[in-house]
């Protein structure tokens, strides 16, 4: 059979109406909105998947993602549309909201001596939990008045070993100011920054598969869960199960922070949206509070 590389075919492969139809479907499924100015971005990625799946046309491919029972191709497309990488202070508007809004609101409901418990999952190579730690220490004036526990988990033991070791590339720390670099890191070799032992020693790293209820059951009474850019890669049922599991991991009135392209509105209605600064996060109802 004659094979040719469709990815080099000239755009457009879809009409404006097909683009609108695709966007409406993708929005319903994921909550991600693409406007007309994103057509090139979206189309490039669809062309790529059309080639990889040997689809005949956009119509053919759309039928596949729309009706495929396994949902595998839809996931592959979502992965391609939402490529993620990890680095220090990624999506830092969330850390802003954490120190200026979430933590101050949280401690209003706490007594002196209660710990504040934060869970970063998946923590990948550690950039997120360390970023949380640095933001709290540097920017929350009440940091010294509370015992703050940061727990960090990932399913991948190799990446967890990297997180524990705490050695990062220049690219990974690219958004860290030189003042903070010299305060919290030591430069080992040209392209390697070692996070200081005090931070390394203050975070509890653990191997956890988020969809295994036996593994997550000990994780209880968290005040804040960061689960960013993971659920977007799950199918609908796994996504529901995971956020419902988080509900039980949270203390009453605890918060979940999701990634920038993830909408709780496509997963569950058991949390209440709350706005802090420029961020919408999700809160478990407090004791005696009705659900939304």
């Amino acid at each position, binding site marked *: 059979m004659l094979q040719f590389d469709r990815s080099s075919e000239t755009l457009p492969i879809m*009409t404006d*109406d*097909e683009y*609108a*139809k695709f966007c*409406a*479907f993708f929005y*319903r499924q994921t909550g991600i909105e693409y406007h007309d100015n994103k057509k090139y971005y979206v189309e490039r990625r669809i062309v790529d998947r059309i080639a990889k799946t040997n689809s005949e046309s956009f119509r053919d491919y759309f039928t596949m993602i*729309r*009706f*495929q*029972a396994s*949902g595998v191709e839809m996931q592959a497309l979502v992965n391609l549309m939402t490529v993620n990488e990890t680095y220090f202070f990624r999506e830092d508007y969330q850390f802003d909201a954490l120190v200026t809004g979430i933590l101050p609101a949280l401690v209003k409901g706490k007594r002196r001596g209660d*710990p504040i*418990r934060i869970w970063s999952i998946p923590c990948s190579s550690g950039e997120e939990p360390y970023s949380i*730690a640095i933001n*709290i*220490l540097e920017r929350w004036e009440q*940091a*010294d*008045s*509370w*015992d*703050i*526990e*940061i*727990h960090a988990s990932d399913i991948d033991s190799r990446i967890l070993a990297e997180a524990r070791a705490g050695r990062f590339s220049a690219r990974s720390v690219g958004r860290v100011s030189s003042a903070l670099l010299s305060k919290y890191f030591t430069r080992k070799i040209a392209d390697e920054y070692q996070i200081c032992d005090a*931070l390394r*020693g*203050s*975070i*509890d790293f*653990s191997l956890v598969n988020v969809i295994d*209820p*036996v*593994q997550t*059951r*000990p*994780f*209880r009474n968290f005040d804040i869960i960061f689960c960013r850019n993971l659920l977007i890669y799950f199918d*609908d*049922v796994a996504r*529901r*199960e995971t956020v*419902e599991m988080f*509900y*039980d991991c949270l203390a009453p009135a605890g918060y979940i922070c999701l990634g920038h392209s993830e909408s709780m509105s496509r997963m*569950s*209605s*058991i949390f209440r949206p709350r706005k802090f600064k420029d961020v919408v996060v999700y809160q478990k109802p407090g004791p005696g509070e009705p*659900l*939304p």
Partner: protein
Amino acid sequence: MGLVKGPPPAAEAVPLAARDIDALLIDLVAPDSGVRRHAARDLGAHPDAAMALCDRLQAETSSSVRAVLLTSLIRRQSPAVAARLTTFLRSDDTPLRNAAIEALQEMPDAVAPYLQALLVDPDSDIRIFAVNIVATLRHRRAPEWLTVVIRSDAHVNVCAAAVDGLSEVGGPDALADLHALRHRFADNDFMEFAIDTAIRRIGQD
């Protein structure tokens, strides 16, 4: 004060009792919503518990428990579960009704045998719900079923819902019926808009 290393959450602290189905069914009606949630989740692993989960769904008032019940039912989907969920479409309880629609949308093979009857139900609200289920179903025959609706249903909102579905999944086969529908509901702004949109999105072959 400041950052402290918390003790690793220990599995021993919360023993996971291997509970049998009878113990879980008792927990499913416990006064504490957390206990009911755990029972609803764990019963998702028991094929024999599906009808008990449906019973609980009908009575449950806590939305966090209801959410877990639905997830377990989607996991345990079967024609029997789908049949039971379709009865909730007639409920006056709006969240229950919509939860049933949402769950049924996730079980295409299980719900398919019941759709024909729902799509011709005497109650137009039930027909609208059925069309809403079909419109997002991952089922190859969905476009065909929606086309039959716009050809034969007399109710404007049922047809409008079907046209909305066809604008996403419809193929050229639906075009003639879409054009014909225009004459059945002339002078209806939304229907005209919906038909134009669907025809445009289906495109020409």
